[in-house]
């Protein structure tokens, strides 16, 4: 492995490749920070440029954009409560609360350091055991995915903040919204109201930006004094010793969760941040601080997210199966260079495989170098008078949402969900379970139906397959804990404190 990594480093460390890695990371960070403008559109735009590059260089640059965007996305989530991607939703929960408490700098710093650490570990994981992990990913069938997602949904309600009834209502609303669009199995369109734009369901970016970002702006405008208070205390940029001590174990746990889930091509990346957040809340001593800006709630999910985006390269490199649309695009770019990602690629193109792996680590280092000094710049954004800041945010949101499909429909969708978000705030309903339901609901249905089709209607398959059975048992246990009145009373007491 050392030899291989050395080969990789010798490829990635050339001046030429370092330059393109830097460029990719920089572009990625920029588009990540701008709400709604995703890596997909950017990589598509830059793909023709890479036709003339060496394939290794091309893939190094494109991957730089990919993880740069994952990284940049947390900046706008923390500062402006604007999650542009599924993975950034969880970051808004504690990250933005931290920013409101005057700890924006610390939130950004912990996210940068945690991501770097997780990225480094995950890179080693990919290098050491990529091919072995592939067979694990493959053995994860529809039944296992279903049980995993069901477990996620149940735990999400068990650990919800405040009223359990309200969080179940939010989760149910999210599940209902997730029903809109083409039914994967039959091809029939549901609840589209005749809009072609709804064939593929309600746009995630519109829901997330509306409910979090736009609603936040409306709320702030309703009560201008609140906002002024937060601006006055931007606070120290660096982590305090206490914060560092609290964040370190969360980073470790997040790295493990992310590395494992990232390997699963069917939504592992999205699950990783939710899973890490839920885990932190359960195991951290400071679980009761969650919802008010607990650093563990940023450190864990951010590390998980970055670890997962590294390990999601495993199925792509070893099987030629892209884990998401961005990966598919990168594979498309490789194909044009005459390279077939897949089982033979490690032997046939060792420079490409190991060069890419080494460049992942270098890319993570670059992101740290780019982002740490930028924290001061980002945080000073908060000092801008709000009357200048909010119209700018709205314009960037509109551009971002529009650019997803060049469609004004998505802009109207965002506005609508902004109103929904404001209404939910007035009703004192936490929107996070809604988003969890919205993201996981369609996946739950997809895997349930697929399991049943493949097993030809036999539901026993869920308990006959060991991994699925264990996951279901944990889910049942979690549900039981929630339903046991004694424990619930305890939970209520804990919440009152």
């Amino acid at each position: 492995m050392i030899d291989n990594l050395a080969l990789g480093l010798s490829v990635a460390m050339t001046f030429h490749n370092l330059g393109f890695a830097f460029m990719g990371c920089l572009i990625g960070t920029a588009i990540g920070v701008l709400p709604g403008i995703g890596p997909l559109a950017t990589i598509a735009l830059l793909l023709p440029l890479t036709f003339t590059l060496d394939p290794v260089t091309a893939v190094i640059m494109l991957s730089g954009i990919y993880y740069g965007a994952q990284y940049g996305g947390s900046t706008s989530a923390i500062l402006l409560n604007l999650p542009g991607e599924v993975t950034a939703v969880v970051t808004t929960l504690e990250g933005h609360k931290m920013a409101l408490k005057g700890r924006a700098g610390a939130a950004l710093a912990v996210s940068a350091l945690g991501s770097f650490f997780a990225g480094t570990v995950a890179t080693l994981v990919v290098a050491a055991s990529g091919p072995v992990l592939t067979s694990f990913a493959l053995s994860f069938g529809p039944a296992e995915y279903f049980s995993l997602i069901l477990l996620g949904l149940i735990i999400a309600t068990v650990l919800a903040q405040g009223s359990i009834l309200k969080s179940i209502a939010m989760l149910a609303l999210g599940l209902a919204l997730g029903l809109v669009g083409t039914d994967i199995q039959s091809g029939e369109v549901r609840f589209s109201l005749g809009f072609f734009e709804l064939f593929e369901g309600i746009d995630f970016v519109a829901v997330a930006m509306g409910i979090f970002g736009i609603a936040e702006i409306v709320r702030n405008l309703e009560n201008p004094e609140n906002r002024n208070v937060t601006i006055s205390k931007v606070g120290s940029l660096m982590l305090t010793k206490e914060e560092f001590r609290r964040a370190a174990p969360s980073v470790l746990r997040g790295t493990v969760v992310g590395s494992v889930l990232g390997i699963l091509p069917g939504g592992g990346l999205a699950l990783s941040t939710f899973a890490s957040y839920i885990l932190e809340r359960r195991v951290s001593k400071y679980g009761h601080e969650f919802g008010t800006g607990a650093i563990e709630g940023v450190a864990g999910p951010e590390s998980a997210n970055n670890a997962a985006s590294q390990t999601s390269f495993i199925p792509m490199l070893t099987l030629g199966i892209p884990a998401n649309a961005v990966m598919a695009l990168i594979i498309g770019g490789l194909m044009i260079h005459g390279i077939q990602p897949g089982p033979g690629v490690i032997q046939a193109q060792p420079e490409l495989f190991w060069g890419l792996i080494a460049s992942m680590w270098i890319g993570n280092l670059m992101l740290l170098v780019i982002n740490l000094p930028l924290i001061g710049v980002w945080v000073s954004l908060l000092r801008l008078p709000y009357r200048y800041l909010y119209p700018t945010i709205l314009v960037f949101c509109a551009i971002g949402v529009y650019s997803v499909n060049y469609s004004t429909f998505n802009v109207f969708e965002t506005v609508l969900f902004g109103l929904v978000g404001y209404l939910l705030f007035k009703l004192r309903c936490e929107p996070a379970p809604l988003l969890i339901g919205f993201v996981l609901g369609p996946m739950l249905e997809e895997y349930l139906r697929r399991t049943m089709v493949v097993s030809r209607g036999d539901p026993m398959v869920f308990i006959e397959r060991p991994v699925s059975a264990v996951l279901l048992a944990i889910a049942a246990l979690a549900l039981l804990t929630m339903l046991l009145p004694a424990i619930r009373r305890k939970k209520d007491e804990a919440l009152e404190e």
Partner: protein
Amino acid sequence: MISRRNVLIGAGTVGSMALMSSVAKAQAEWPARPITITIANAPGGDDDTLSRFLAETLTSELGQAVVIENRGGGSTTIGVTAASSAKPDGYSILCLPTSGLVQTVLRDRLPYTLDSFTPIVGIGGYPLALIASKKAGINTIDDLMAAIHSPEGVTYATAGVGTIAHLTGTTFIREAKGKGINVSYKNNPDGIQGVAGGFTQMMFVSAREGAILKNDENVTVLAVTSPARTSNLPDVPTTAELGYPQIDGRVWYGYLAPAGIPADVASRFSAAVVKGVQTPKFQERFGPLSFQTDLKTGDDFKAFLVSEQNRFRKIITENDIKLNK
């Protein structure tokens, strides 16, 4: 909502009549500004990759920038609807993939038909490859036939109802006089993963995708659907060689303009595309991926589209695949 669409169609017709005079004026100096090619899918698909590559040659041939715009979603209907209502002035071109044409047969409430467009040029595409799951115990075509003829039938992965993989899979199983259940996935990579994991037994993918899997330990590539073997899978027999009828399963791509585009503009665009596809640069990139050039222009291309529509209609009616929307 039907009424909303009728209004849209009406508006389109009135609009295009009003435009006739300005179109006539514009064609003399075409192209005077950048030309947009609409891709009816998200970036990264074959239609996107081929068009972006061709755009380079088109730009230098036509002397104006050729810009790619992705308008994905709605199983291509969003992008095709947008393109159908664009001005027929030669500045808006649609890249139509096979699945886009299937939609016109599959769904009966679309705001466009093939007649909303003037077909300009078809460029060819990829044949399909039949893959099967070694992990599910299928190593040869005989194993697969045993599964197809088993009482419960074979499971075949597709990226959804009405995709070429679905139509080809149904046809193949029907011709083999067996039984099959469609297992729909969100996209082809997810489906391939299902086959590699042994959860679904077989799948039709493009020969380009199939070639990635030729050395896979979990998947076997059993056959290709083209009349002859493909360049990237020289060891894989054709379905005809294996003694099964040759199924016309392939994905192709073509360029269309909103109906009413001036004939000389259409022929200049078509000539530029033909030139682009014939360049060694294009052939060297896509040839090894099993891209099969099949240039058809103007009326030839239109006749091809109509015959494809009829073929799809036959498969769809025979197997009762029609959707309501």
